[in-house]
């Protein structure tokens, strides 16, 4: 698949109870800026908004989100689900707005493109040349297993669920240690096309580092995470 494709979910959008742990903050992840879908990218002395390269599928996705919520943030899961966190009286709930397939290509303000599925000639332990706040936040354990923990609100507080995204993986473990010498486990992000990154602190600045990739077919899925509405 070489182009981004989008298939909307039928409405009312089903609730999503599965993994959802994007980066916190008001300028993280994929979100709308002047009605364009993209992500903020921090550089040492600047901040840029990289938009998802225009196409009919991207316009279809954007129009869906803008029509229902007038913007906000979305999360692309590596298994192809697109998740929208709800606001106002439904804060804490999430819905599936559709499914995507293919690479997400970002366009920088200078016109250069960045393909999130093929991020260039990088090897695990190298600096990640793409956006550093998109993706699902996970924990890479000291055996290389990838764990995701997320919360859902309940009437009495919340439910905290944990899932093993992928079992112990020595390659991921050694890549993490190359990216963050001295750390054996820590927070990572699994980006839309399955690449895994982590942040390394260097002189007060968080630098994104590349760890490796997870195949979408290994992504865990449970039907009980999808709650259909009538």
């Amino acid at each position, binding site marked *: 698949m070489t182009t981004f494709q989008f298939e909307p979910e039928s409405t009312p959008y089903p609730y999503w109870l599965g993994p959802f742990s994007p980066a916190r903050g008001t300028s993280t992840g994929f979100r709308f800026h002047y009605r364009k879908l993209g992500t903020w990218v921090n550089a040492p002395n600047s901040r840029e908004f990289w938009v998802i390269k225009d196409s009919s599928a991207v316009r279809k996705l954007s129009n869906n989100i803008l029509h229902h919520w007038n913007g906000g943030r979305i999360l692309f899961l590596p298994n192809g689900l697109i998740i929208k966190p709800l606001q106002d009286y439904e804060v804490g709930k999430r819905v599936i707005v559709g499914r995507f397939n293919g690479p997400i290509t970002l366009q920088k303000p200078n016109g250069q493109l960045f393909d999130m599925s093929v991020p260039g000639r990088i090897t695990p332990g190298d600096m990640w040349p793409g956006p550093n706040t998109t993706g699902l936040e996970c924990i890479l354990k000291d055996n290389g297993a990838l764990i995701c923990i997320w*919360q859902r609100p*309940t*009437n*009495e*507080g*919340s*439910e*905290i*669920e*944990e*899932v093993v995204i992928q079992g112990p993986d020595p390659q991921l473990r050694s890549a993490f240690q190359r990216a963050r010498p001295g750390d054996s486990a820590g927070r990572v992000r699994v980006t839309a096309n399955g690449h895994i990154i982590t942040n390394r602190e260097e002189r007060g600045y968080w630098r994104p580092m590349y760890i490796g990739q997870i195949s979408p077919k290994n992504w865990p899925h449970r039907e009980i995470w999808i709650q259909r509405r009538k």
Partner: protein
Amino acid sequence: MNKPVLYRGLWPQNVSKLAKYSIRLIEGIWKITVLYEAGEGLRYLAVEGGSADLIHRINNVKTTLRQQQGGAFYVNEFRHVIVPVSVEAEKSVVGSHYYFAGLLESDLSFTFEGVSLSTKPIKPDGTPLLPGDRWVGPRPGIPYVLAAGGGDIYFTTPALTDDNPPQVRPMMTRKVQLSKILKNNSDVERAVRPVTNIRGHLGGRFYVNEHGAMFTPVSADDGNGLDYIYCGQIDRNAWFPEPKVGE
């Protein structure tokens, strides 16, 4: 005996070894004991008086579930007796499952060097402890957390299904916040104040025992280790509801 039922309330899980009671075989007789910080060391103290029925109920839970008799148990502020039973790691990420073993019917008291010790908030001479006083008695209790900011109290515990009997929901934790239960801000404020007065707004863990007494660890005055400070009593009108027990 009926098959033991998983306890629907708070499972204490990772607490200090001083925060639990245990049943131990002493000179061939099962006794309720508590680990007590005595001067430089720790000592097991045996409970005073009769507790044969309680021991029998706890051991029954263990033997029904094919475990060895004896070991730890807890009593919470509802006087529910809760018995942890270890499970094989592959069956659950939770190290133990907690079962209900009835109610604590009579208070537990101990003697140390000729002085009677109680888990009530009283000093060895019988005068009441005041909030801010050092907790002098044994420390079994159930862990709660004063949230950062000091505005709420919560606990986390493995989530169970709504079935009867309940089952553990794998990889799922339930977080229960007093502010979500009570809804009324002044009730929440009343509940948190005794703990906030001691812990401040940083929050942190505190324990509640079978008498509803709250105590919390703080750095010792001499800089060595921890002191436990009495915070006050829970207000039962501004507290978590009693978990459902039985069928």
